[in-house]
Every structure is written in C-alpha cells, then in structure tokens.
C-alpha cells in the first residue's frame, strides 16, 4: 500500500473587522481628504495614523489635529521581490514618510520617481484618488510623489527612522 504523504486542509474563516474609535476617526478624515493625527496629553507627540493610544506613555490619546499631506522620507526600502497579499507590484519603493506636524512616520509607496533617485530626507506629497472616489481607506492615498523642495537635513528627522 502506497503511503499518503500529505493532505490539504483549507482553512476559511470570516470575521467582522472592527477598527476602533481612533482608527475610525482617522479613516473618516481620509474619506474627506484630511489626514488626522492625535497628540499625546503627556509627551505632546503627534501620532499619525492615530491609534488611540500613546505606546510611550500608555495613555489614551484624545486631542485631534490635522497634519499636512506632505512630509519627509525618513528611510525606505526598494521592494524587488513579489509576495502574497501586496497591494503593489515590484519593484516599488516603500517609504517611511514623516508628515509635517507628525512625530511618527508611516509607510506608503513612493512613485513618480526613479528608483535610484530615492533618498533619505526627500520631500514628498500625497497623491489622492479623485475626489468622488475618496473613501475611509488608506487606498484613498494612491501614493506619495517627490515635490520640488530641498531635502530635509538628516538631523531634523534622525529621531524618526
């Protein structure tokens, strides 16, 4: 009798994903073309996207402020290998963008820029989807693109890598 070597067992599960209050506020802002952050009451740092908590202070964040949709690339990686679940096809630039007015960078894709031209300190701005296509999802920001501003000095963002 020839032994069975392996079996296939599909696992299919469906959940109701709940964003939570802070994320919902953030996403509803995105749907209006605004990027909202939250300022920690203790350390005064601004979180974007807001997560409802300051991990440093362990307190709930409440004060909401709007930040710019442009900022600085603090660091980046050029993704050259395809993998499952990704929203973009390689090669592409995944950049940590520190928005003006925020104290923490978040990751998004950088386009309209040759791969070899991407630099730490580069100034970039969000490219949004058409106004009528805006929705409460991060994909309302299609990508970031370089803008004609001089690069930020390393010292200005070295705390935010």
């Amino acid at each position, binding site marked *: 009798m020839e032994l069975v070597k392996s079996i296939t067992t599909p696992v299919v599960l469906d959940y109701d994903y709940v964003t939570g209050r802070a994320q919902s506020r953030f996403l509803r802002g995105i749907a209006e073309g605004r990027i909202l952050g939250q300022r920690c009451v203790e350390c005064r740092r601004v979180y974007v996207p807001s997560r409802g908590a300051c991990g440093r202070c362990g307190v709930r964040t409440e004060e909401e402020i709007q930040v710019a949709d442009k900022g600085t690339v603090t660091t*980046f990686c050029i993704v050259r*290998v395809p993998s*499952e*679940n990704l*929203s973009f096809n390689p090669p592409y630039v*995944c950049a940590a963008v520190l928005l003006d007015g925020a104290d923490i960078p978040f990751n998004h894709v950088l386009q309209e820029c040759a791969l070899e031209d991407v630099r730490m300190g580069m100034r970039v701005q969000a490219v949004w989807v058409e106004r009528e296509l805006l929705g*409460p999802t991060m994909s309302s920001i299609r990508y970031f693109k370089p803008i004609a501003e001089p690069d930020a000095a390393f010292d200005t963002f070295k705390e935010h*890598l």
Partner: protein
Amino acid sequence: MAERSAVIGIGQTKYDAKRIDVSMPGLLREAALRALEDADLGFADIDAVVIGKAPDMFEGVMMPELFLAEALGGAGKPMIRVHTAGSVGGSTGIVASSLVESGVFERVLCVAFEKQSESNAMWALTVSTPFSVAVVAGAGGYFAPLIRAYIRRSGAPEDTGIRVALKDRQNALKNPYAHVKIPDITFDQVMNSPMLWDPIRYLETCPSSDGACAMIFASERAAAKAPGKPAWVHATAMRSEPTMFAGRDQVNPLAARMNAKDLYAKARITNPRAEIDCAEIYVPFSWFEPMWLESMGFAEEGSGWKMTYEGATALDGDLPVNMSGGVLSSNPIGASGLIRFAEAAMQVRGQAGGHQVDGVHKALGHAYGGGSQYFSTYIVADHKP
C-alpha cells in the same frame, strides 16, 4: 535565582525547506527524543513541558500545543505555550529555565518549532486587513529601512552585510543540521545575488525552514545525575517595548540595550567582549550582526561593523558569532531563538563538532522579535554561577 538551572539535554532536527517526511508531532519528537537521549532520560522523567512557536497562522492550527503536548509525553503534566513573536524560541527556553529556577520542577523539557512548509510565511505575516494598503513586504520589507538607517548612522562600508553572510554561510557548512548550505560560497556570489528588499540581497536573507529544537533544563540535583557535562544558566533576560511610538529608535532599541545591561548585571559580567567566549545572535538579515553587536555592548555604537570587518566574529576570531551558521542558514521561525540558546549551550558543553570553538567557558544566546522590540537572552557557562 532560587535554584540553579542547567542545560542537560539538547536535540535538533535536520532543518530543511520542507520536512515532508514527518508530521508536525513527528517533527517535535525528532528533536525531543534526541534531547532525551542526550540526557539519558525518558518522557517519564520530565516534570513539565514548555512549547514555543511563532504565529499559529503559519500552521493553521489554533494553539497547536493542545494536540502536540501528548506527543511530548505531556499528558498529566503542566504545559505552557509561549509566544513572544520572533524572540519566542529564546523566551521558551527562559520560561523552561525559570520553572527550574523557581524550585517547583526538577526537569523541564522545552520544544520550539515551526513547520513553515504547511503554509507560506509571507502570506501569514502580511495577512491584509480591511482599510489598509499592504506596502510592507514581509519581514524583509520591514527591516530593510532600518538597515538603511543603520548604514547612514554608522557609516559602515556597504559590503559589511556581504561579509557577515559569507561567514555565516561558511560556518553552516560545518553544521550537520543547517538548512542552507552552499559549498564553496564566495564573496562575489553573495554580492551578485539578487536584491530583494534593497539594501538586502537574497544571500543576506534567512530562509523559511521546517524544524524543531528541544532542550532539557534541570535543577542542580538532577544535573548531578546527568551523564553529560551540564551548561549552567548564569543569567536570563527578557525585555519588550511597543512597536510604534513617536521617537522610537528602532535601529538600536532601548529594550535591546536594557536587556543587555540586565543580563550582564545578573551574570556579573563587566566586559562582555572579554568575558564571553562566543555568541549565537539572532541575525535574520546579515546587517543585524553589527547592529546587535552594538546593542549587546560588544562594540561601541556605530562601530559594530568593525568587528565583522576585522574578522573578530569569525570562527577563529576573538568573539565568534553564529558558529552554527545562524538564522541566515536555518530559520524555523518559532525555533530560531531556541536554536541560538541550544547552540550556545553546545559550545559550553563541547558538543558542537565541526563548528566547535576551542576553550569555550561562557557563551551567549540571543533572540529578538516583532519590530525589533522583543528581546530574550541568556548566558551559559561550564561552571556553576
């Protein structure tokens, strides 16, 4: 610690991309039975079982330890499942050791594993959630920007990562359990391998492996009866910090530095570079060797790369690092940390065969996980603390 704890048994499976020859319980048993044989014990001699692995979604079983405990003789015994992200292997060893140090148990078996071939690690790590865009390409995509930041900060030569990869891949050739073995590997081969997540090249990256590692920790009384030379636990340390907060230094995280400080204080080590004979450090991407050498206090901040460059971390250097070939050569994620602990203990016990370093009295095992935020380390020596 209330009681001394010693490593008296170690077992590893052969690591490979797909261990399709074994079931999940079979994989764990391969490691556990070797550890028992090493300690000349049977399952009946074990008082408690600790199981560690990374996310359950890798194997698609919720809390798989519930069905695996009995494969390790766990029925009727205490069983604990540890999960601290990528550092889990180290944490599993520390929890097992603490069960002995507490004075509650005499002999504790711990097994850490991952059977990544049951699914796909990239899938499990980047399961997309609603409202988000998936831009970070798995672990490589997450850590590449941090490596870029390290290079910028330290001014390290661009080929540092290649040198680490070459050394670890050469060491792996001497380790019978290693997964990735590239005979006659050269500097050019590593340099010319494809860029995956710029600046990380293919040969500077860890593989996805199937495998399990087992260790038996014992009290002083039980260690005295063990047939082999025990490796005495001199110190253990665990430290965590949040993933995301404003102003977090992810390149040289404070949690890593505090962990090292705590570890050395407990082990009464004042000059780690001089007092520790060799180290197994969790390096999933080659650049993390210099990064962790700095946070572990073996080198000044910004100069860890010099140790790599000068050959200090080579098998014949003054602080050999990843003698086994490291995570770059074998990476069953949940087990990778425990393998570091096991390999450190093997060096102390003189069990490391082809990759044994001469005259090891004291060795370090290190693991990290999450977004460089979970750290588990320990120090073992050939003499009692």
